[in-house]
């Protein structure tokens, strides 16, 4: 499945990178977050476990916070808020 970045509602976006391996999920997440406004929320959907470790580690560095995480059947759905420009 190809990468999809969509607007879900006011200030809420979805980035679906299922099927992608490192470093694609973390690169797309970083680039997507950079484009959002402070307070916007990104719903990130991915299924590459090693990206989970890297994305959670880079949260503070690129001004974002993890607000909710789920893992079902190898599929991660994370909600990330941009807290600093």
């Amino acid at each position, binding site marked *: 499945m190809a990468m999809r970045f969509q607007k879900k509602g006011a200030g809420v976006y979805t980035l679906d990178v299922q099927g992608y391996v490192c470093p694609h999920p973390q*690169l797309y997440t970083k680039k997507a977050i950079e484009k959002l406004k402070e307070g916007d929320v990104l719903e990130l959907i991915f299924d590459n476990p090693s990206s989970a470790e890297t994305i959670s580690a880079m949260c503070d560095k690129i001004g974002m916070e993890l607000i909710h995480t789920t893992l079902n059947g190898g599929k991660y759905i994370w909600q990330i808020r941009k807290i600093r420009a």
Partner: protein
Amino acid sequence: MEKSEIERKEKRNRFRAFGIMAFLSSVSVATYAMNEYYIYLVAYLWFGFIYGMALQYGRFCFSSAFRDLFAVKVPRMAVGIMIAMVLFAFTAAVVNITGQSTFHPAPFGYFMLIGGFIFGVGTVFAGGCASGSLYKTGEGNGVAMIVLLSISVTQSIFVDVAGWTNKLVPRSWTESAAARGLPASISATDGWMDQYLAGYVWNRPAETVATALGWSDYSFVGAFLGNFVFGTVIPAALLLAVVYIWLSDKTAGRGTVGVTDHLAAFWFMIVASKRTAIAGIVLGVACGLQSFVMKGLQIRFGVDNFGELMQRMGITFGLTVNGTVFDPGYWYITTQEAQWVGWTLHKLGWENLDNIFYGLDNGIPNPLFNPADWMTVALIGGAAVMALLNNEFKWKKPTMELAFWAILGGAFMGIGARLALGCNVGAFFIRVPHGNYTGWLFGLGMIAGAFIGVKVLNWHTERKIARELEAIHLS
């Protein structure tokens, strides 16, 4: 997803994980019952299993060490690798002074830098290093499976290609290869790789920090001061300090920071990823222990190589001209990957036992009797068990886009690994802790390669996300 469905999936995953362990245990018991020599292969198998579990648990991928550092400024993997190498270096020093080591140093030369560079570019394109692709295969990742196939096929062809490539060989290499007087069945002067090995690489010095300083690798001073402290601990600490300073610059200007703060922040960087650090500790100890155990088994059976045991069992196909097979006695990855494809190609009619890589150094035994293959298969199994138990296993079909990157990256990794006589494990992770400083040269090449690889992937992903952003007017 319904709670009952999640519970059902978790139960099924646990069942599959125990199924894999039951299968590997059955193979171990059944083969040992057939012939006690199989314990040699079984030892490889269970060390591979431990490596697989540790790699998956810690998401331990050498590619991500410097790629994530350059791409998203995350140092967790670089830290994890340094922890693992320091611990491995300590256990390797202990093993060395007991005289139970199976390690042989590799030659030193700029070719290590070049091989590391090509390999490093490949790891970024492929989305994982040689060991990372193995454990991701255990997670059900189709892209990683393509990477493995690409590495294996590329190596297998690269070591045997002759014809026009002979024109690229300097005359001095040909003369030096011819002067070695290798067995007649080995075509040392026909094929680029053969002349590269026999005419150039083998002429380079192969030493450790200890031997370079005039100490024996097996003495206390040589093993601990030379190879452990000078060869591993100090360079690893310096490398981490460089990483820390480089990352600190990005956050400079946030107030006055003293030495104590820097030391605290440095320590925080070391322990920031608990999973990676734990995996590093397990890998470091297990790697040293494997060398000790394999040497012990060699002494127990009175052999120096598993090929001798194969002959005692009446298995002679695929042995080298010296009656040996690839039997490193420690963790290794790419050579056995080249071997199983080499064996397959040979069965299909490709004569490849006349080259140095297969015919003289490693052989092409049936994968069922290949010690290192047992380790690789069990590594994938160990990673699958860990992924299943943590509900992270998922079959992932590769897209055309990722398959392209996997094939390209795998090919780069295959060529880089053969030029450097090993991958991120064999040429770096194993060599450095034994004081074989050529490993650091490979590591530097890998860092430079990762930097360039990230530049290319950054360009690619930037273009793709720009198109998506335009569609929702966010560009």
